[in-house]
């Protein structure tokens, strides 16, 4: 059996291990969110607001996701509405508010417990087409920085990783750091069955995770 952590829990776990995620705060009420934003300078408008909980799988289908929140008034409204939309069957819920980041390139990184080889780490071209394109590289965790650099070289879409549409080239060392961070998470938590960082948007050359999902074996 496995349990999937909420997006807020997943984000906290991956960022504790050094994965760079877009700036975020979490809270169970609108007021805690607004208070947290006063002191946290890493979270900047425009914002994304989501209602998270372990039982909530399909946020967008249920409208539990608000994009492009540009000011405090809209934020307050969005938080109130999302909290009101929670249903008893959702169990414990919390709000996740994060900066909207922009970049035209998306990667996917993750961990997966493979039945033959144990914990493996993955890097691929991400976004909604990730599973159709299947431009991915796997290694057995843990990896060395050399292994991580070779994973990046394994991707077919090397042109996406250079300078692209006015955006600077990917800073490869920072992507190596993400892969190393995932492996250290895997080593610290043997109960991890899978981790998805999807997408990992390349923002000014830096990979930033804007969504994280951790699945644990129970």
């Amino acid at each position, binding site marked *: 059996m496995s349990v999937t952590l909420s997006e807020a829990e997943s984000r906290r776990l991956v960022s504790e291990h050094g994965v760079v995620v877009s700036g975020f705060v979490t809270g169970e009420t609108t007021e805690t969110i607004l208070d947290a934003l006063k002191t946290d300078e890493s979270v900047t408008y425009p914002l994304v607001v989501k209602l998270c909980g372990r039982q909530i799988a399909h946020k967008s289908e249920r409208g539990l996701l608000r994009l492009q929140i540009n000011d405090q008034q809209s934020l307050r409204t969005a938080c109130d509405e999302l909290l009101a939309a929670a249903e008893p069957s959702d169990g414990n819920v919390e709000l996740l508010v994060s900066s909207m980041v922009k970049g035209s390139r998306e990667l996917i990184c993750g961990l997966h417990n493979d039945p033959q080889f144990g914990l493996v780490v*993955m890097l691929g071209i991400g976004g909604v087409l990730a599973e159709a394109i*299947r431009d991915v590289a796997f290694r057995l965790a843990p990896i060395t920085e050399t292994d991580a650099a070779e994973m990046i070289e394994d991707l077919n879409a090397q042109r996406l990783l250079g300078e692209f549409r006015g955006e600077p080239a990917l800073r490869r060392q920072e992507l190596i750091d993400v892969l190393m961070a995932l492996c250290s998470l895997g080593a610290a938590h043997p109960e991890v069955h899978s981790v998805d960082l999807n997408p990992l948007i390349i923002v000014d050359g830096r990979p930033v995770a804007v969504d994280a999902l951790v699945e644990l074996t129970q």
Partner: protein
Amino acid sequence: MTRDLSALFDPRGIIVTGVSNHPGKFGFVCLHNLLAAGYRGEIFPVGREPGEVLGRSVLGSIDEVPVGRADMLFICTPPPLNEHLLRAAASKGVKAAFIAAAGYREAGPDGIDAEQSLVAVADELNIALAGPNGQGVVSTPSSMCAQIVAPYAPAGNIAVVSQSGNFVSSLLNMAHLSGVGISRAVSAGNAAQLEVTDYLEWFDQDPETSVSLVYMESVDDGRAMFERLRAISTNKPIVLVKGGASSAGARAAASHTGALATDDAVFDGMSRQAGLIRARDLEEGFEAAATLATQPLPTGNRVVVVTTVGGWGVAAVDAMAGTLLDPIPLPGDLKAEINELLPPRWSRNNPIDMAGGETRDTVPRILEMVAGHSEIDAVLFLGLGIQSNIAVMMRNGPFFPDHGLERIANFHETQDARYAGAAAAVAERTNTPVLVATELTNTRPETPGPATMRAAGLMCHASAARAIRSLDLLVRHARWRQARGI
């Protein structure tokens, strides 16, 4: 700790069981093959009917074998007899057994029990057990062909282990055709006790082996295998062909990462991480191994093509697209040197197309200059064949040997032989790989270019594209080593 398999590959003597006068039976075939290949040790045929087979007297039981003269037992008899044979052989000093017999794990529940019991006995007796359900073992340093199938192969430095017995035969035939020889070859069969990795570890320690070639279908303990293969790769290269790679293997998974983790995607990542040289199919695997066995490892990816014909060079550069190989522009100092040797119509770039401007000694000199240049990591020579083709036509035409045809045909043939010899000599002197390709390797293997290379045990590729594929695999492996400071 590496398991000692010297009793399996270099036994002082072999006991062959199940020997009879019937030339279709496995015991007979194995005895025949051992004798035909000129096995260096003693042979002790054992069978139910006393008498002579192939001029050798057959012993009625293993009890008649003198103690300490045989290290290896070759079993072709059915499962119920075999544990007893192992015990009898152990009492004579046997340390290894090859079980060709079938009827074990592949045969259902009873077979599984029989196999476990057989392994338990071998473990108790400290016998290295190969098979069961395998086709045999070949070892050229001992001139040993202990197989229930054929062929044998020329001696060389490639060691083979395969989870498919018939692929051992295929690879031995490729060795035969190419002239690039084999050190050891074993069909792992059900791999009940000795696994593929056990053989690879022994090959790694084997001075007769410079590269291992493995055909693998199934993986038992993936993590342990990975660790062991990676350790071997830091020393000797392993070329791997994986069967069943196309099976989808994608599983229902909650995560995107899990959905993308098909068996082959993970296996391929493991291969790269362990430094394995993964080939797409058996031919490519053999050619990569043959190239590794006969060429120095390149130190970089800068390739220059030397050719006598424009089209061959174009095709070679096309084949480098999508590989790690870089057909670099010719360095200026090299261009100037070649200008001294060739008339002005030569290509003046990479590929070096001599455009028919070469005279008797030009090709060897240019190969030496190119391979010896500090900014060039590998050379592909596409110059064999034109002269041999003419010689073949002349020899088979109605005018031979008159009209000067004999003399010119001899000249053409000598030139192709010289070029082939020069490529090998230059590679050795400059420690730079010089790959050679010509379609004559397959179409007219008896002509002097490929024949010279074959006789010297060198790989002559059948096309530029295939040579490039091998070179690409070598460069990838060299990078893996360099990135790890090996």
